[in-house]
């Protein structure tokens, strides 16, 4: 198929940035979206131009590295799909495709479609873990966990940390990301000991990094390539309220 690609070009953090338009011919409908961008790169390089910089790695929809807004939707029009798992058969011959980087204040553009997502790591570093010393754990079956709880924890843990939720949210809120991590760890028995401390620390870091609050718009859930549910935000709110309440009487952190 033949396509027109409108893509955001921005040299670096300080550059203003603008859209550029390129023509592409003979794209196979079996190609992935990123393979289409590879072909564009080769075409640009052949003409002596710099290719469009974009983040990508596993190309299996699981590392969470790819990050681009395609025709206004993070990861593109297919639901529950990362950009790397989006295939060209979902587009049609002659179509114009607009590609932009994640748009959110905490994610400054590094170059073209590449943004800096380290604020998400900082939220994890504040408390997104269960403190367990390597080498001294008890037998894994010593603590049975009901299948329902294990499954729920797994639903939450499926988050790949790509940041589409932030990019989709008009408030650039990271509540779905943080909620997923909190729900994963707070619901497991081994995560209960530092539940309150974890929740308070992660929320406070999230706010400190400049992410906005949640106003129940739901764009995050719609854009999430792993279909993480809004329930995770509800759990975050509950756990946060409980932790704050307890912290008011006796500091938990």
């Amino acid at each position, binding site marked *: 198929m033949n396509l027109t690609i409108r893509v955001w070009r921005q040299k670096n953090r300080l550059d203003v940035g603008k859209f550029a338009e390129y023509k592409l011919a003979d*794209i*196979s409908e*079996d*190609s992935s979206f*990123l*393979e*289409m961008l*590879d*072909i564009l790169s*080769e075409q640009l*390089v*052949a003409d*002596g131009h*710099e*290719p469009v*910089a974009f983040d990508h*790695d*596993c*190309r*299996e*929809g*699981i*590392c969470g*590295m790819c990050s681009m807004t395609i025709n206004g939707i993070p990861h593109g029009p*297919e639901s529950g799909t990362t950009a790397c798992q989006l*295939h060209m058969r979902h587009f049609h011959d002659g179509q114009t495709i607009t590609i932009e980087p994640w748009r959110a204040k905490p994610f400054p553009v590094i*170059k073209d479609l*590449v943004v*800096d997502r*380290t604020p998400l*790591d900082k939220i*994890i*570093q504040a*408390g*997104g*873990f*269960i*403190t*367990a*010393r*390597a*080498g001294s*754990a008890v*037998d*894994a*079956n010593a*603590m*049975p966990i*009901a*299948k329902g709880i*294990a499954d729920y*924890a*797994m639903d939450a*843990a*499926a988050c*790949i*940390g790509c940041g589409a939720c932030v990019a989709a949210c008009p408030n650039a809120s990271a509540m779905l990301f943080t909620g997923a991590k909190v729900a*994963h760890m707070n619901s497991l028995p*081994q*995560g209960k000991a530092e539940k309150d401390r974890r929740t308070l620390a992660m929320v406070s870091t999230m706010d400190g990094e400049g992410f906005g609050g949640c106003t129940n718009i739901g764009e995050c859930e719609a854009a999430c390539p792993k279909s993480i549910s809004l329930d995770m935000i509800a759990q975050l709110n509950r756990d946060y309220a409980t932790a704050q309440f307890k912290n008011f009487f006796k500091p938990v952190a």
Partner: protein
Amino acid sequence: MNLDSKIPEGPLAQKWTSHKFNMKLVNPANRRKYNVIVVGSGLAGGAAAASLAEQGYNVSCFCYQDSPRRAHSIAAQGGINASKNYQNDGDSVHRLFYDTVKGGDYRAREANVYRLAEVSSDIIDQCVANGVPFAREYGGYLANRSFGGAQVSRTFYARGQTGQQLLLGAYSALSKQIGLGKVKMYNRHEMLDVVKVDGHAKGVIVRNMVTGEISRHAGDAVVLATGGYGNVFFLSTNAQGCNVTAAHRAYRRGAGMANPCYTQIHPTCIPVHGDQQSKLTLMSESLRNDGRVWAPKDKETAKKIREGKLDPNAVPDEERDYYLERKYPSFGNLAPRDISSRAAKEACDDGRGVATTGLGVFLDFRDAIKRDGQKAIEERYGNLFEMYQCITGDNPYETPMMIFPAVHYTMGGLWVDYNLQSTIPGMFVGGEANFSDHGANRLGASALMQGLADGYFVLPYTVGNYLGEQGVAAAGKVTTDHPAFAEVEADVKSRIDKLMSIGGTESPRSFHKRLGNIMWEKCGMSRTKESLTEAIEEIQALRKEFWSNLKVVGDADSLNPELERAGRVADFMEFGEILCRDALMREESCGGHFRAEHQTDDGEAKRDDDNFAFVGVWEYKGDDVAPALHKEPLVYENIKLATRSYK
């Protein structure tokens, strides 16, 4: 080259315990005086960095991705083995050890594999404590399944995302230490060389991939956990960024490169669709628990399927060749990867392949759906089925999946002794980057096991032992002011300048594709003396062309994916030749290395234990000079070498 494997004395089952006792300890107050560099943040690197920091060492950790959570360990789907015997089906440390040595076609070092089997149960405990949501039974206990090459159910899994969940466990342990300031994390930094002082590894030179800045980092020990080299084939199941640069640069500085020809071809990948393809996607091996592999018995039928004139569902059972069940009745569809891959190739070479290219066979769930219901299959493999549909546009609940072998895991890597120390003292190598545990073939669900074993349970001890031996007076002694750093940094810079200044016409990707084509055609699933000799010549010619006709656009002091790729492809070009030399030297077939000259009458791999029961270790001798081969004999004291049979 000193290839002393330092296997501890004593009976196999006691080796690791007594070795741990005999190791030098570093007192907790002194640990903070030592700096350790960890390159790579996957299962091995992330777990090692987290554990070493937890013990009190200062750790610097580097990864090329934007976050340590993205390491390619994340993509391993199926599961992780452990000898827990929770299923009461006869598993034990010894059985896991035995299966792994046998699965590796008797080309792995006994003592290392035994230790791997031994610590495997600790890994599960550790991961559960870290919050990894493994699958559970209704009673709340951990669930297991079986995997290729095993007759017991010892594989623990977290839906189809086991690698992701294990990596996130290690990443969260690492994140805790980053938050505490014990690990300094360098995202988007690529290691470009090793610095040696008085023969010991004392630092690395890295490039900040955003600013292009080249910087020096000194440490008392260096751990490389930089993954495998499968991308030398261009198309593979590896992530795009996976590369051999760190290992290859270490090789050029004196580290031995062991068994590079052992490349695993995984049997269950989605077939190639065309020449625009950039990578191959694996369907988890766990699918072979329920899926039945077949090709049409008849070439005409296969042709009709390829042309879309016949629905594969319409092929009656008696016209289907369930070749794995036929040839390997006791293991059936769970035959090991090398054996299953070759069997698929055989069917396709015979003209009975499906997919438009003729390079595909079926993995059919019809019978499993009939037996257990679609819901049960959805529970087990739902996300894998979705992924398949997303990539191919076909619904695998209705029409059988198509699969074909593809380059997956690399069992070769830097040579290490029992302490996982390379031939450069002070440089340790963990996970896929070393050669040690899988022999000539890796069984399913054992890559995750090795990564975490090295990272959580081996390196934290052996690195400490090395530091203890060096003595606290040596801690932090070497700084980046040492002239060795300036020298290596100058090398790195001149190499980048050279790549930028060639000013030719061909892109790095195009060279990579051409190299990959040579590798796959002449050193792929089947190799011959002739094809390998040709490959070596062609790679040498291609390398000349690369250095005279490469075109790298952009500049060196900003984010430049073309420059990154150029540097990696340059290293693949040199490494690819070593791989072919190793394959040429090894006049036998074993595991992932199949020399067509060495096969039995019924087409099985024919090993030559009398002449080839050794680790082949290559030593760098200079540019355009053939590397030297050294041999570490493999001594089996606890296992009788036998012909590997899965019939």
